[in-house]
C-alpha cells in the first residue's frame, strides 16, 4: 500500500499537493496510508512513495480552507479523513453545503477544535522580556497548544509584533522572529525565562478590573479553561479573588453611605453657578430657551431643538413642517434632501435663501425607529399647537413682510387650517397678526410623488409659487 509522508513543516501545502496528485491518478482512499513526519512507519506500509505530480483538480473554496485548517489537527487520522471526503466531493461539489452529512459534520467539529486552539493561542500566549542582542527588544514565550498550530500562527505574531524579536516555544515546534525573518525550529521543553516586572502590574490590573459583586466562575472557565492557567501569570490570583468576592460584595452593601468630602459642596456649587439666565429678546436667547422646552413629548426622543436660521431683519420667512433625520442630527433647518431641493428651485427663480429666515412649524423631529432608520412621522395637532408658541416668538423677532408656508403643517400653524393644501397653494392668506402667508407644497412631498408626470406637475407648481414669493418681495422692497 503506498504511504504518503506529509512533512511536519509546510504540512498543509504538502497534503494539498499530495491529495491533488492522488486524486488526479484516481487512487481511492482505501489504497493510501498517510504518515505525519518521518517518525515510526506503519507496519503494513510500503516504502514511502513519491505521490504523483499534482494534477488539475477543482474543489470548492470552502474545502480548501477546511483542509488548510484541518491539517494542523493532532488526530493521526486527519489526512485520511480529509482525503476520503475529498474523494466523495470530486463527484458532488455541492456536498460542502450539506450540513446534514455525517463525514462533513465530523470534519467541521475537528476544524472548530483547531480554530479554537489557534484563537486561544492568540489570546493566552504571554511574552516575557529577555535581554536583547542587537537593537531590537527581545521577548520569549512558552505555550502548550493542543494541535500543531505553531507554524500557521507564526504569521499572526509577525504581523502583530513586527518591531521586536521574539521566540515562541511549543512542545512540537518553535518559531523565532529575528530582524523581521521567521524561522521554524524544532519544539522543546519549557524554557527558563527571566522574571518580568510587568507581570505584577498585569496581575494588579486583573485583580482590580474584577467586580466581586458579579461572581460568575462558570462563565470565566468556559472561556478560559483551567488547562491554560498554569502559563498565565494572572491566573495565580484567581482562587483568592473568588474566595474573597462574596465578603467584599457584602461589605460594600453593608457600608453606610458616607458623608461627602468637604470639597464636594464647593465644586458642585461652583458648577451650578455657571448657568446664567439668558438675556431675553434675541434669537440666540430664544434658541437657548427652546433647548429646554418640554411643552410636548417630542423633546424626549429627538436629538435637539432645531430653531430657525437667517438674518434678524429678513423680509421673507420660510416655514416648513419639522426637522428631518439630518436636520435633527445637525441642529440646523433645511440641510437634508428636502432642503437641498428647495435651494435648487429657489436659486432658479431668484429667491435668495441667505436673505430669508428659514424655520419649521414644529421644532423637534418626530419619528418612528425602524431597524437602523428613523421613519418621519407627521406631528399631530397638539404638537403643532404646542410649538406654535416658538414660531410666534420667532415671527415677532424677525417681523417678515411675507411668510412662505410649505405644506399642510406650516399652513395649520400659521393660518389655523392645514386642509386642502393642494387647492389652496399659490394663494395668499393672512396670519393671525395679518402678515401675508403664501401657501405652497412641502419640498419633501415633491421627493415622494411616485408618478413621474404628477411629480413634474408638482415641481412646476412649486416653482411657480416660489416665483410669486420672489415677485411679492420685489414689490414690497
Amino acid at each position: 500500500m503506498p504511504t504518503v509522508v506529509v512533512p511536519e513543516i509546510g504540512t498543509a501545502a504538502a497534503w494539498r499537493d499530495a491529495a491533488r496528485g492522488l486524486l488526479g491518478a484516481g487512487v481511492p482512499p482505501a489504497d493510501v496510508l498517510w504518515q505525519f513526519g518521518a517518525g515510526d512507519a506503519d507496519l503494513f506500509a510500503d516504502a514511502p512513495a513519491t505521490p504523483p505530480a499534482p494534477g488539475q483538480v477543482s474543489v470548492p473554496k470552502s474545502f480548501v480552507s477546511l483542509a488548510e485548517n484541518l491539517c494542523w489537527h493532532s488526530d493521526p487520522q486527519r489526512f485520511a479523513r480529509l482525503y476520503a471526503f475529498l474523494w466523495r466531493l470530486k463527484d458532488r461539489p455541492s456536498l460542502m453545503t450539506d450540513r446534514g452529512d455525517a463525514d462533513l459534520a465530523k470534519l467541521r467539529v475537528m476544524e472548530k477544535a483547531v480554530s479554537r486552539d489557534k484563537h486561544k493561542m492568540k489570546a493566552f500566549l504571554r511574552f516575557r522580556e529577555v535581554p536583547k542582542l542587537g537593537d531590537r527588544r527581545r521577548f520569549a514565550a512558552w505555550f502548550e497548544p493542543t494541535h500543531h498550530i505553531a507554524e500557521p500562527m507564526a504569521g499572526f505574531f509577525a504581523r502583530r509584533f513586527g518591531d521586536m524579536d521574539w521566540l515562541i516555544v511549543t512542545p512540537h515546534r518553535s518559531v523565532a522572529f529575528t530582524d523581521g525573518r521567521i524561522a521554524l525550529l524544532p519544539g522543546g521543553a519549557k524554557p527558563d525565562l527571566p522574571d518580568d516586572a510587568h507581570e505584577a502590574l498585569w496581575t494588579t490590573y486583573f485583580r482590580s478590573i474584577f467586580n466581586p459583586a458579579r461572581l460568575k466562575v462558570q462563565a470565566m472557565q468556559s472561556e478560559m479553561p483551567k488547562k491554560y492557567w498554569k502559563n498565565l501569570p494572572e491566573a495565580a490570583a484567581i482562587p483568592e479573588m473568588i474566595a474573597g468576592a462574596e465578603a467584599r460584595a457584602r461589605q460594600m452593601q453593608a457600608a453606610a453611605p458616607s458623608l461627602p468630602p468637604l470639597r464636594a459642596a464647593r465644586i458642585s456649587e461652583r458648577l451650578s453657578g455657571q448657568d446664567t439666565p439668558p438675556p431675553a429678546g434675541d434669537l440666540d436667547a430664544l434658541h437657548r430657551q427652546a433647548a429646554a422646552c418640554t411643552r410636548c413629548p417630542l423633546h424626549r426622543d429627538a436629538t435637539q431643538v432645531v430653531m430657525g436660521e437667517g438674518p434678524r431683519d429678513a423680509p421673507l420667512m420660510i416655514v416648513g413642517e419639522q426637522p428631518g433625520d439630518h436636520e435633527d442630527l445637525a441642529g440646523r433647518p433645511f440641510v437634508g434632501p428636502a432642503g437641498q431641493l428647495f435651494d435648487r428651485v429657489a436659486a432658479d427663480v431668484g429667491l435668495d435663501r441667505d436673505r430669508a429666515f428659514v424655520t419649521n412649524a414644529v421644532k423637534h423631529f418626530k419619528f418612528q425607529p425602524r431597524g437602523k432608520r428613523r421613519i418621519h412621522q407627521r406631528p399631530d395637532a397638539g404638537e403643532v399647537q404646542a410649538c406654535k408658541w416658538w414660531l410666534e416668538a420667532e415671527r415677532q423677532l424677525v417681523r417678515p413682510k411675507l411668510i412662505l408656508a410649505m405644506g399642510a403643517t406650516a399652513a395649520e400653524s400659521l393660518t389655523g387650517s392645514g386642509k386642502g393644501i393642494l387647492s389652496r397653494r399659490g394663494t395668499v392668506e393672512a396670519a393671525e397678526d395679518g402678515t401675508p402667508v403664501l401657501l405652497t407644497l412641502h419640498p419633501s412631498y415633491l421627493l415622494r410623488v411616485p408618478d413621474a408626470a404628477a411629480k413634474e406637475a408638482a415641481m412646476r407648481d412649486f416653482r411657480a409659487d416660489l416665483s410669486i414669493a420672489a415677485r411679492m418681495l420685489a414689490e414690497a422692497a
Partner: protein
Amino acid sequence: MAKLDLQQKLAILSDAAKYDASCASSGTSKRQSRDGSGLGSTEGSGICHAYAPDGRCISLLKILMTNFCIYDCAYCVNRVSSNVTRARFSPEEVIQLTLEFYRRNYIEGLFLSSGIIKSPDDTMADMVRIARELRQVHNFRGYIHLKTIPDAAPHLIEEAGRHADRLSINVELPTDASVKSYAPEKDPGTIRKAMADVRLTKEASKDRSHTGKRPPRFAPAGQSTQMIVGADGANDATILGQSTRLYSSYKLKRVYYSAFSPIPDSSAKLPLIRPPLEREHRLYQADWLLRFYGFGLDEITGATEGGNLDLQIDPKLAWALQNRHHFPLDVNAAPREMLLRVPGFGVKTVNRILTTRRHRTLRYEDLTRMGASLKKARAFITAAGWTPGALTDSVDLRARFAPPPEQLSLF
C-alpha cells in the same frame, strides 16, 4: 497624602473603570506591522486575552486617566461626593502601560476614560494627546477606544475619532428624567447631540471630495453607549424603547446594558442591591432579537408582564409561547423569517437549515448537528420523523422550560 506609585495608581484607576461594560476590540479596519515600522495589528475579530471571575472578557487595558471628577452622579464611584482614594496618571504612564502590556500580549489595546477635571475640554484634550502620541510617536496600530466627554469641543471629538477605533458616550440611564435626578450636571440633550455629531462626522469621512481624495478615517469601529439597568425605576420596555431609538438615530454599534452594581462608598440616593444580572442578560437577548432576528419592539414588549421581560425564560421563547398559532413550523418548508423565530434556533442554525434543505429532507437528528437547541425547538417544529403532536399547545409547556418554583421558607 503619600505619593502613589504606578502599581497603586493602576489599582485605583482600573478599579474605577470596571463599571464600563464594553471591552470590544472587533470590527475595526485591518492594520499590521509586519514590516517592523510599528507595533500592533487588528484583523477584524476581537481577542479576549483573559477572563476575570466575573465572567467578563478582558480585551483592553480599561483605565481612567484620573478618577478625580467634578460631577456628582449618584450611581458612580468617582462622583465628587465619594470618599474613594483619588489618583491621576500622567499621559506618559498611560502610554507606557499600554505599550508594555501590548508587547507581552496581555491586551488588544487601550480603553481610556476619565473623570472630568478642570473642564470637559481640558480633560478631552489630555485623552486625545494620549491617543495621538500612541499613534504618531510610537506607531501603535492596536485598538484604541476613547470615551468622549459630551461637552467637549467638536474639534477635540474630531481629532479623537481620527486616532481612535471606537468612540463612546454613555447615556447612563434610560430616561432623561432619571439622568437629571441622578446625574445633575449631565444633560441628556448634550449627550444625544454629541452622538449625533459623531454619526455626522463619521458619515462625512466616507464622502470622497471631487478630486476622489478620501478624508481621514474616523472611528472605523463606530460608536457605542451604555445604560445602567436597575438604578432607577425604568422597566424593560422603556429601556428597549430607548435603545431602538438610539440605534436608529445614531447608528450605534452596540448599546451596553450594565446591571447596577454596589460600589464602594455608595451614595444615599441609590439602593444597594445585588446587581440584577439575569435582567441584564434578558435585555441583551431582546436587543439581539430586535437587531438580528426581525422582531419588532411591540412584539417583545407584548410578551412581557408590566413591561418587564420574563426572567425565567428567554424573550424569544416567551414570544413563541404567546403566539403558538404560528407553530409548529415545518423546517423543510418554512421561510427564513419564520425559522428565525423558533426558540432554540440561532442565525447560524437557520442559515445551515436553508443551505442543507436544498440537498435533503431534514430529519430531527440533522438539526442537532446544525447547532439547534432541540430541547427548546422541539415543541415548535416539525421535521421528517418528528411532530410535536399536542405538545405545542399543551398547557404546561412553559413549565417545561422555566425552573421549578422554589418552596418558600417558613422561617
